[in-house]
């Protein structure tokens, strides 16, 4: 029997038998590819950490405000047990714009007791607070406290990745590495403090708030080193539950290796 010369025309309803079977084969192949792709891309993702950003639940916290090296609130959790809560602004900005507003009206607030309503961000023992409105900061009537001097821990050389703490500790997942690098650069140049995240072989992490050699905040100068495995050297000091590291930005060494914090 002579083979039927099938010819498909899109606007004609009839379709030949063999053409139909070829279409079926292709559709099955395409759906199969989508299924396999979905399984591979869905299953083989690096697991996100359990960091938290309470974006829909505002929390009020009270504590002593310290301005240097970066705005923080020292909160008394229990008698003589304190926690330094790093203050951040809305979006990719630091907290200074909101704090400057209250400073304009109330003068110097360093060492004074504040109550701030904001959104908590927390992970791995560190807590941060996002402020989105200067009206949510109130100055409490209490005596000004003297700044407790940080404890010197000597000079150290550490390998880690410079991250923006807002994303790293909860707002984004992942909040580190190549994928997140541009966002971290915007956050840090917008006033969010740069943090060096360090993780050892046992996955024990430590975090260093980075400042210049004089202990002043650094932002734009450090942007080229963000989100890359790097080696940093500097004088380390301990605040309540954060380390700070005074560094010479020009001496940061970019490392050609996979980041240990991935």
């Amino acid at each position, binding site marked *: 029997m002579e083979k039927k010369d099938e010819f*498909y025309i899109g606007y004609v309803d009839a379709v030949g038998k063999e*053409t139909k079977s070829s279409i079926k084969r292709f559709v099955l192949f395409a759906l199969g590819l989508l299924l396999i792709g979905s399984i591979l891309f869905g299953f083989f993702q690096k*697991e996100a950490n359990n*960091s938290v950003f309470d974006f829909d639940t505002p929390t009020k916290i009270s504590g002593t405000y310290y301005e240097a090296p970066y705005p923080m609130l020292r909160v008394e959790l229990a008698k003589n047990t304190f926690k330094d809560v790093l203050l951040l602004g809305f979006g990719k900005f630091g907290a200074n714009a909101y704090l400057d507003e209250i400073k304009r009206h109330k003068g110097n607030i360093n060492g004074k007791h504040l109550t701030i309503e904001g959104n908590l961000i927390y992970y791995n023992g560190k807590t941060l607070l996002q402020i989105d409105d200067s009206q949510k900061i109130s100055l409490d009537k209490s005596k000004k406290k003297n700044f407790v001097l940080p404890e010197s821990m000597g000079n150290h050389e550490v390998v880690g990745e410079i991250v923006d703490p807002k994303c790293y500790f909860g707002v984004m997942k992942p909040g580190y590495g190549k994928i997140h690098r541009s966002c971290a650069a915007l956050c840090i140049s917008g006033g969010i403090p740069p943090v060096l995240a360090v993780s050892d072989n046992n996955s024990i992490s430590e975090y260093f708030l980075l400042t210049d050699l004089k202990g002043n905040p650094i932002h734009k100068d450090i942007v080229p080193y963000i989100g890359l495995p790097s080696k940093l050297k500097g004088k380390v000091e301990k605040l309540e539950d954060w380390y700070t590291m005074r560094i010479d930005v020009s001496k940061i060494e970019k490392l050609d290796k996979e980041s240990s914090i991935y």
Partner: protein
Amino acid sequence: MGLDYKLVLWNKHKKTYDKIIALGMVLYLVLFIALTLAFNPETIAETMIIRAFGSLAVIMLHIILVIGPLSRLNPQFLPILYNRRHLGVSMFLAALIHGVFAIIHFHTLGNVNSIYAVFTSNMDYGSLTNFPFQVLGFLALLILFFMASTSHDFFLKNLSPNVWKGLHMLVYVAYALILLHVFLGAFQQETSVFTIGILVLGFIVISSLHLVAAFKESKVDGFKGEKDTGGWLKVCDVHEIPEDRAKIFSVGKKRVAIFKYDGKLSAIHNVCKHQGGPLGEGKIVDGCVTCPWHGYQYLPHNGQSPPPFTEKVATYELRLDNDMIYINPIGLEEGTEVEPILC
């Protein structure tokens, strides 16, 4: 074929085609989200959306890119080509959701404009591994946008088929940019051999299919027929052409399709005026040469679309000597009537 422009000229096949596209996309997204929630429960919605739509768009692009060479190699796959533009637009929408969410997530609410930030927040343009991969994705999305927004016969007609085709060939530039975007971006951090492997395999399959299809085409272009004293080209024996079908020959720098139908032979330029489809791979249906891509029709003896349509292609004179077909390589004006030769 249509005389006026409608958003979509729906027919039974297009509806089925689109239902299958929608089913495939929904299936992908549901499975991706279910797997992510089951095995990566701490993830956030934005990351899940960016990843789900980005990976969906990449896989859809692979499916789109195999359709062309597959249907060149086997005409039975032509129905998949028929409505490929709907698949293309759907893929663009998936890529757009990925791109918009990524820009909102990573580049908005900062101290500079978010589009400016895409280009400037990572300035390591001189490094391969640290290259700002977002820029590559942005440029690919821009190409896909121009392609998707001109995926309509209105633009095909008004831009001219050549310009339109040139614009739509940029899909290969977009594919290269997307591969680089993924390999220099996500795959620097998400290093599963399986996900990297599927894209490497995809690249090998797409390249191989294109090479095989190009090899098949090169056989036509490699045709060197003898010329007789009058300069006419000897092409083939009349029995080599099946009834209601054609054979394609390279005549000068043009491809010509010689059709056999109702005991007659006619030759027309092989390129359809609609999208450049190969008329010689078409068939005589209702007395007309019918393009295998979208069913555009031409009368074989004058290369004119039947009224009220107005498309015209060049025609060629033929001669038959002892069952051997000869063609005058000098083509005639588009739409010129040529008396078919009897065979």
